[in-house]
């Protein structure tokens, strides 16, 4: 594996903290209320998918757990909602690394898309169990599709910032 230079590591740690604060602030703002009043985009899932898949900061299972607990305290419907989601995302990443040690660009994008979809489905299921919203027939599926699309779009923006940390 290529080693990151010290400068890049520091930049990426700063970027992680910056994106974490950004996600926290924007999670409190219902920016996409024009789509639906219940709609909150999942900035933290996008951030964790980027962090786990791109090694934004050196990460292990304990750190994933602790970040999950912090996110739960900040925006979770119930303690453990984001923790379990992040743990499954971490598990999926490790599992996929077994089969795609050097994934092609298309494979990497697909893996991130699958990670985001899995994350949002888990968060929505837990929300529906503990804090249900009554969806009419089919609207839950529409909600999931829009949520996944917007979270993936946020991930792309985060990815652009991440790639900038390597400089020109």
């Amino acid at each position: 594996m290529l080693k990151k230079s010290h400068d890049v590591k520091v930049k990426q740690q700063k970027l992680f903290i910056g994106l974490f604060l950004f996600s926290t602030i924007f999670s409190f703002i219902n920016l996409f209320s024009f789509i639906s009043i219940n709609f909150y985009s999942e900035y933290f899932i996008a951030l964790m998918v980027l962090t786990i898949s791109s090694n934004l900061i050196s990460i292990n299972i304990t750190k994933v757990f602790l970040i999950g607990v912090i996110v739960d305290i900040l925006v979770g419907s119930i303690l453990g909602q984001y923790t379990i989601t992040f743990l499954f995302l971490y598990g999926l990443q490790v599992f996929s690394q077994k089969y795609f040690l050097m994934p092609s660009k298309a494979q990497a994008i697909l893996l991130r898309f699958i990670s985001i979809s899995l994350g949002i489905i888990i968060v929505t299921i837990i929300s529906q169990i503990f804090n249900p919203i009554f969806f009419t027939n089919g609207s839950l599926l529409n909600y999931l599709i829009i949520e996944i699309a917007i979270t993936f779009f946020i991930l792309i923006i985060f990815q652009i910032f991440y790639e900038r940390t390597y400089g020109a």
Partner: protein
Amino acid sequence: MAYKVSKKKLSLFTTNFSLTYFILFIFLTVLMMFMDSRYDYLKQIRKDFSFITSPLIILTNDTLNYFENFQSLSKSKNLLEEEINQLNIEIDRLAIENQIRNLLVAENENLREATLLSKKLAPKKTYPAEIIKPVIRGRTPIIIVNKGKKDGIRQGMPVVNRLGLVGQIYSTYNQTSGVVPLLSKKFAVNALHENGQNHVIIYGDTEFLVIPFFPASIDLSPGDTFVTSGLDNVYPSGIKIGEVVNVSPEDKQFNKILLRPATFSNQFSLITILDY
């Protein structure tokens, strides 16, 4: 020459990932969820860490409120003067209404005493309070009011204004309290149809109140109103909750009913907390 590969290296996870730790953490998380759903620890933790989260919540909410209020701030002087005149008229009207209310309360007490009716159904005490500001905590809208523990406010007390039910006290602090408004997803109330026949549970659903499964065999049309039933021993009976705006079939047996609340929490800054 062939090397013998150890079993560990051939296992599914060959990185520094430990499957045992993974299962242990998943178990711990499930335990956390179970404990939280049962004992509501997250609320207490949020209270303890509010010195970190509050500035962020205030920052985001105040920024939004600033933009929302910008339009009203930029009103011309004439418009504001006209508004002041209107408000003065409203104050006079409310003062008269308050006098009538006081008279009715006194009369009600006298009548209850005269007819030897139980005082159980009447609120023991009412606390007038003022809304400080609405905030969003953990994606749940909460209204902060200026009465707290030191004024005798307890969790669970119903909150009303002159048009109907506003919500319920969710958390209490020394000088302030948090109210869960009607439209919050955390809100549920036992209700009675205006004809006095159908009992239902009404839930908050962000934009409207909702009765998710109402028997399709019972006639219900837009404009019908629901009031608190008093069966839950939380809310006094007869407080207006809302009126039906939409009846849509959920399946062959049930309809989904949407209701517009009788009052919105941002309609009046003055509310009344009932000790019931």
